């Protein structure tokens, strides 16, 4: 085998990146989604500096104020205030931290567990494969939200437990994907040649095969990110996720429910925030899928 000089590998990698960006940027929706997502990340990172007030500061003289452009609204509270006089905009800004953290933690946990199980099943086959995949089938047999609810009931309500439960529920999708990709790759010549060259099991699994399964994993991770945010908000809404007074968007919706006719804005904005976030991520996901899937590429 010939030595490959670093410059020779870097150039195709850069070219691949440029090609990826070329296809990705052709999708206008995906670019918009990416921009919105980037703004959300910035908002989440700098929330305490951007938000006009702390998330839990109450203004006793400003209960249930409508947004500033509506009659009775005040310019000090741009999106109005909630039933106990907290600024909606500030709570929403702080809430972005929770949603992005939920997505990040859930995807990291689900991805790591899914990769380990999927690689083991796809690489070793036999009974390892049978046992792992049967367990995945069992998890997938339950409606995801129901299983997450029951797991939270066992572990106790709370944001952290909700994240763990959602990660567990989403993880079989990764395991299945990785297993299929590993099985497809394992028989190919480059793997055989690496094995003949003396690569051990671990090296074959992680360094040789796994990097070639990355594309579908990226797409699945993006979709799971938005799914995790939706499910965590749903759990929060049902009172089993983040607990009040946490400014998590789903939890905010739950406590706003009784004011739905009197003060529609306390219901409207948290849900809108969830929708925009999830939509932006799904737009990016669609763009990634189109850009990474060679079947759809038009030459």
């Amino acid at each position, binding site marked *: 085998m010939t030595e490959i000089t670093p410059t020779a590998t870097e150039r195709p990698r850069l070219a691949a990146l440029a090609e990826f960006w070329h296809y990705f940027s052709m999708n206008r*929706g995906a670019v918009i989604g990416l921009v919105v997502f980037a703004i959300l990340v910035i908002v989440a990172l700098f929330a305490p500096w951007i938000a006009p007030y702390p998330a839990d500061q109450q203004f006793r003289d400003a209960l249930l104020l409508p947004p500033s452009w509506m009659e009775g609204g005040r310019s000090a509270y741009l999106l109005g205030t909630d039933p106990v006089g907290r600024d909606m905009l500030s709570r929403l800004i702080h809430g972005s931290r929770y949603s992005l953290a939920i997505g990040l933690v859930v995807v990291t946990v689900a991805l790591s567990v899914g990769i380990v199980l999927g690689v083991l099943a796809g690489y070793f086959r036999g009974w390892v494969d049978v046992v792992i995949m*049967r*367990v995945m*089938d*069992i998890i*997938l*047999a*339950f*409606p*995801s*939200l*129901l*299983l997450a*609810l*029951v797991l939270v*009931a*066992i572990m*106790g309500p709370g944001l952290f437990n909700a994240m763990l439960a959602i990660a567990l529920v989403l993880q079989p999708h990764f395991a299945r994907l990785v297993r299929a990709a590993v099985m497809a790759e394992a028989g190919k010549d480059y793997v055989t040649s690496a094995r003949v060259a003396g690569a051990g099991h671990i090296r074959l699994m992680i360094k040789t095969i796994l990097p070639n399964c990355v594309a579908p994993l990226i797409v699945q991770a993006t979709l799971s990110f*938005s799914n995790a945010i*939706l499910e965590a*908000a*749903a759990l929060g*809404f*049902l*009172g*089993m996720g983040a607990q009040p007074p946490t400014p998590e968007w*789903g939890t905010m*919706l739950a406590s706003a*429910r009784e004011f*739905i*006719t009197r003060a*529609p804005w306390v*219901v*409207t904005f*948290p*849900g809108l925030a*969830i*929708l925009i976030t*999830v*939509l932006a*991520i*799904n*737009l990016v996901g*669609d763009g990634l899928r189109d850009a990474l899937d060679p079947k759809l590429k038009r030459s």
Partner: protein
Amino acid sequence: MLRYILHKLALIVPTVIGITICSFAFIRLLPGDPILAMAGQHGVSPERYEILKEQFGFNMPIWQQYLSYVWNVLHGDFGISLATKRPVLTDFLALFPATIELALFAMLLAVALGIPAGIFAAVKRGSWFDQLTMGVALTGYSMPIFWWGLLLIIFFSGYLGWTPVSGRIAINFFFKPITGFMLVDTLLYGNWAAFVSAVRHLILPAVVLGTIPLAVIARQTRSAMLEVLGEDYVRTARAKGLSPSRVINIHALRNAMIPVVTTIGLQVGMLMAGAILTETIFSWPGIGKWMIESISKRDYVVVQSGLLLIALVVMAVNLIVDVLYAVINPRIRAR
């Protein structure tokens, strides 16, 4: 065909056993003493404690507990609800039709709108209709449906006053259920006003529950159509001089429907998850609301059996879809 069905059945046996283990383990995984946990802050008298312990069989070895659990389940004994004191299966069967009715109409809506929308979007690829439909579909797919439901209530029930806010039928109508399906029952009684009331109650929940399946079906139909429209046999059909509508309806559509049918089948689990949220928002007396209430009331016998029953229903429906799929597509059977 019979061999195919038996093969499919054999495949799900381990999963079914796994599901029973999960629901069996649930009560035993609860932190602390399961009986005290179920009793909640009210506590439980020592006599009642012993009775419950006997009833659940917590004094037997664990494998014996599991076997007797499975034995009971196989005989249709899913335990007694702590809250209603009725057999869980009785409550489940009484509430299940409400969920089926809701889910069926949600699915009907999703299929009736999603498939034509997907076909038109594919045929007019790149047009404003295509872009609009796919934009709306992605928005629907990203929708937090619990919020969507609240918005619809604000607008249609609060602002316009067109639809009722909750329940299955106005309270001044009372029926002894015949089939459990409100729309059918009201018609069987011949009460037109009650039927109209039931329809008005059903519309918003069905729209909310159908939103995500609708989005998924529209997107799937479009991509399946696009794939088929690029195939050689479609080009051949066009080259033969067949009319565009004949090419699309006969040659393309039939083949494009195969993956769409699979997608529809896969939505059943989604519908059950969505039913939990939809039924909670609209106070729809189905099994989704029942499960949520049982979790918050710590009626863990119901949660345990509900989990098992719902999973079994989802699996059964998926199995039926698999078999139907093999009926319409002989290529699957041959494998």
